[in-house]
């Protein structure tokens, strides 16, 4: 109680514009010690610690994608991503503006009636708590944007110039570890790995405003949470990632890391069957084959947006909800990538829906270079 009063008093004083003469830093500016962290099966991913943020790690992201249906019946895709970066050097600067953590956020809406992505993005340091992430539970925010765990549900809130949404995401299944012990290896070197879990088959309800049109929406979504030190292998330029909510209740995640020649240098996947059995897929078991390329009229980048994929016991085709789902993130992470809603079909029959992410087609990814 006493400390609270003291805090209030201090706040009152600082509001009134009196500043205390603070001592000046020494000639050589002190650095904060760099935390020693490592992604290793020796320290498996554990709940509930996994739910919160891991600020000691250089890179972390939360990533929600999903398919929506409006009350009028139109189909839409949405994505919301929060990134947290710890710069390679952090000074022992007591200022509230010390850039010890940097946050980016990106959101997009895929509306086939519009034909290209509506996007919004933000970037901020964690100064004054205007952006931040809780260590105790899933709660990450940047300005008025937020992804927050409330009890068992998640709330996703975005306010952009062209669109905004407030969505409730209700888990229907437990979290899925995207690798043995929650460690997802990203290349031949086990050093390139991340802690990674997903919550597929989220039930979505909420409101979406596009321009000034408000609609009630429902649908299904997928949440990824991943943190790492050095996830991208040295010779990788990008990756293709796919997350699918299967109609039978199963969930499938596949990714391939590509080298400069755009050849796969590492493939992996996780298939949780409808009965709850988890199957980790190895590179030799997965085949990605591009069926159709699309060239972006605004960047000139060529993306393979239709694929045929084969894994043991399943062969299917990925069909994008619309062609142009390219995201130019100059105002946040600086990357340009294709990320869009897709449908999964097997001989014309729909198996489920998901999101496809294609990165590194326009040049090496920048943001991942923290590792």
């Amino acid at each position: 109680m006493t400390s609270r009063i003291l805090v209030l008093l201090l706040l009152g004083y600082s509001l009134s514009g009196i500043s205390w003469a603070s001592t000046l830093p020494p000639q050589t500016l002190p650095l904060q010690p760099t935390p020693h962290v490592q992604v290793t099966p020796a320290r498996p991913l554990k709940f509930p610690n996994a739910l919160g943020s891991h600020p000691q790690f250089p890179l972390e992201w939360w990533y929600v994608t999903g398919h929506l249906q409006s009350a009028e019946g139109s189909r839409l895709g949405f994505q919301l991503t929060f990134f947290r970066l710890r710069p390679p050097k952090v000074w022992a600067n007591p200022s509230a503006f010390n850039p010890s953590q940097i946050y980016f956020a990106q959101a997009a809406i895929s509306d086939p009636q519009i034909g290209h992505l509506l996007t919004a993005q933000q970037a901020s340091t964690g100064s004054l708590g205007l952006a931040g992430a809780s260590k105790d539970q899933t709660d990450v925010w940047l300005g008025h944007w937020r992804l927050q765990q409330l009890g068992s549900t998640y709330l996703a809130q975005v306010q952009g110039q062209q669109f905004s949404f407030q969505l409730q995401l209700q888990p229907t299944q437990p979290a899925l570890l995207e690798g043995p012990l929650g460690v997802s290896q990203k290349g031949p070197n086990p050093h390139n790995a991340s802690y990674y879990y997903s919550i597929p088959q989220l039930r979505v309800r909420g409101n979406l405003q596009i321009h000034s049109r408000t609609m009630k929406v429902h649908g299904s979504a997928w949440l990824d949470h991943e943190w790492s030190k050095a996830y991208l292998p040295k010779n990788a330029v990008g990756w293709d990632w796919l997350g699918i909510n299967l109609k039978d209740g199963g969930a499938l995640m596949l990714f391939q890391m590509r080298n400069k020649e755009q050849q796969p240098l590492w493939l992996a996947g996780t298939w949780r069957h409808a009965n709850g059995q988890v199957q980790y897929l190895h590179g030799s078991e997965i085949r990605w084959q591009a069926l159709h390329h699309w060239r972006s009229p605004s960047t000139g980048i060529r993306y393979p947006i239709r694929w045929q994929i084969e894994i043991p016991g399943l062969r299917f085709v990925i069909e994008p909800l619309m062609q142009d789902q390219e995201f130019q993130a100059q105002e946040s992470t600086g990357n340009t990538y294709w990320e869009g809603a897709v449908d999964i079909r097997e001989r014309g029959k729909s198996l489920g829906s998901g999101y496809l992410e294609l990165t590194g087609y326009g040049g090496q990814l920048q943001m991942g270079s923290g590792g």
Partner: protein
Amino acid sequence: MKNWRIPWRAAVWLPLRDKPGASLLAILGVALGVALALAIALINVQAVDNVAAGLRRLSGTADLVLDRPGGTLSQEWVRRLAMAPEVQRVAPQLRVTAVAANGQYLEVWGIEPLATAAMGQPLLPASLASKPFAIFDPLHLVLDQSALQRLHLRVGDSLSLEVRGVQRHFRVIGSIPDPTPGQALAVMDLGAVQWLWGREGDITRLDIRLQAGIDRQKFVRQWQDALPPGSFLRSPRKEGRIQAQASFAYRANLLVLSLVALFTGAFLVHTTLSFTAIRQRHSLAILRVLGLREREVLVAGQLQGLLLGIPGAMLGVPAGILIARLALQQMGGDLGAGYFSSAQASLAAHPFLWASFGLAGVAAAAFGAFWPAWSSRHLPIVRILGNGAEEDSREISYWAALPLGVLALAGVLAPAWQGAPYGSYLAIALLLFAMLILLPGLLRIIGLLPEFPGALGHLLRAQLLRQSGRASRSLAAIVVAFSLVIAMAVMVGSFRDSVAHWLQEILHADLYLEAGGRDGDTLPSNLPSELCHPPLVTYCSPLRRRTIQLLPNRPPVMLLAQGINSQDPGRTLHLLERAAPDSQGLPPVWISEILARLGHWRPGQIIRLPLGPSGVEVRIAGIYQDYAYQQGAITLPLHDYQQWTGDKEINGLALWLGANTTTGDLLERLHRLYPASIHWQIATPGQIRKRSLEIFDQSFAATYALEAVAILIGLLGVGNGFGAQTLLRQQEFALLRCLGLRRRDIFRLLLGEGLLLSSIGVVLGTILGLVISLILIKRVNPLSFHWQMELQIPWGDVLPLAAGLILLCTLTMLLAARRVMGKDTELLHDQ
């Protein structure tokens, strides 16, 4: 408009072509007038545009700017405003200064790089996109072009800066174009600035972008009262307007002055066409007999005006653009008056202004053409054809001057409108008109002069008396021009005298010491205790000078906290008014006359100053004269200021030296104590006076240039008028030669006439000028600049000017008459 049957060649073209020199001079006069007025207008518009656009660009896509002039804001406001649901994004800044190794002060802006980029503010180079963490290094900074040039640095170099007394080595990681033209600037991470400058928790400015659809006015109303005292929330556009308003009066006055040049140009056309009209009377009378109607005579006159005006305007507009471009390059947007610090402006296209001033030139010429045409419109044809009388029989009645005088008086008494005394300017124009109407009558005072000796003298006197109307036309332009020159000279002289006198009165100390010109340029706080000991120094008076926002929608005013004796403030300030003794015991402040007028404040009034946590109530104990701070100044005891704000910084120190101390001794000791002091500004009262008056003169440079052009146009008028007059008198001269006068005699006759007319013109111009200067000093200056001054006629300037002009004028007349004198024998043959 039907059935015009004007014989173009005979009525319009030939009369002008016959006198190509005079017509050319008239065109030149119009061109000069247009060029000058347009140049001034262009410079004005451009200067304001540049200042406003610069401020807008600096704010990026921000809707509002929160700042607290001269003070700081707690960073808590960043959080509060950023969290408000109406706010989409905020970008805070902390602006500080550092000293470079060469002693130059460098302004350093601490920014939040990601917020700045999101706000689209031009403060980070695009090259940093590939190394996004670089700017977060506390010893990395970005310099603008001016800083790179002044410090002789390139990107990649290291830069040593003294920061709060500590030498720190920074690396230049990028460069940006000057955000404010001409200002040397470094941009760094805000967190680093708070840390290295020991300013944790402070910001100085916050740019705010609102969510789409939020009403800006409503948001400002909602927040303004909650904000700390002295802080303001306003749109970047408004910020620009307030900045521009600071110099509005100066620019409005300059524009009016430039219109005078155009006005003089109109008189030149008037002079030229008057003589054309007289010469043309015979042909016009014949045309009238042949059926030309009266109004067609009028139209023909107007066409002649257009014939002179259109080429004049077409020459004047490009010339004006050229002058404006050169002036902007050489002197900056404020023409050296010091409003926009070193702001270099480039000129944009303003077709509307070009067209307006071109049309104004044509209109001036048409206006000049109207009277001659009007007076020759209804001349008795038979009389002209009969005896060829060349002198006007029908002058405008002198009584017409009376209503003009009454109107002028009303104009003088009228209040200022939007900060510019247009009524007074109208009065000046009316007085000039009245003078022109009265001029022929006034010339008849020659009749009051004693008889001139000799036959030539007699002839001279008779000539002038009989032809006063014609002489007045020659003189009109020069009387107008010279009266304005005298008016300005008297005004500037009085002003300069008042400033010099004031400087004498306020500079008591032996030596003045200052760190620099800005709020943040401070002296070491232990300087007084280190330096101020007898016998070297007997007394020291420290000064804290910073800006403070006292009046909404006005630029900040200067706050001067200094040692001041509340019982005897007159020792420090030149007091104009004092309040009655105070019974409430409120702390006293003194305000400058300008501030008193801007704020409508009186002595004894209680005002609230935005100092300290919640502001303080103070009582205005007096009003003092001040010529230093044009936006207003407020003075209060240093002790009070420090108590209220906790701010112990000082920017200046006034020193009284011991009896046996020289300035050199003191400087030596100072440099031993503080090696950095070689970069301080140290001056004796004499040096300050000299520098102040230099700045004063510089700020009137543009005015002098305008006067010179007005005189030039006036002289063109004299030349044209006298030349035409002598031409008309060819017969007379020939006759005089017949009667035995030698050429030398005619020359002497013309010389005498020239001298006499010039003298009378100059004397009349001087008298009128003195009247106008009274209007300038007693009305224009107090109304537009809030400056009072005592009328001081600088005879030392006026008399040589008058003598010089009489000589120039006479010379012009003789040059104009020279051609006639060469032709008299031929004429005689003809006769």
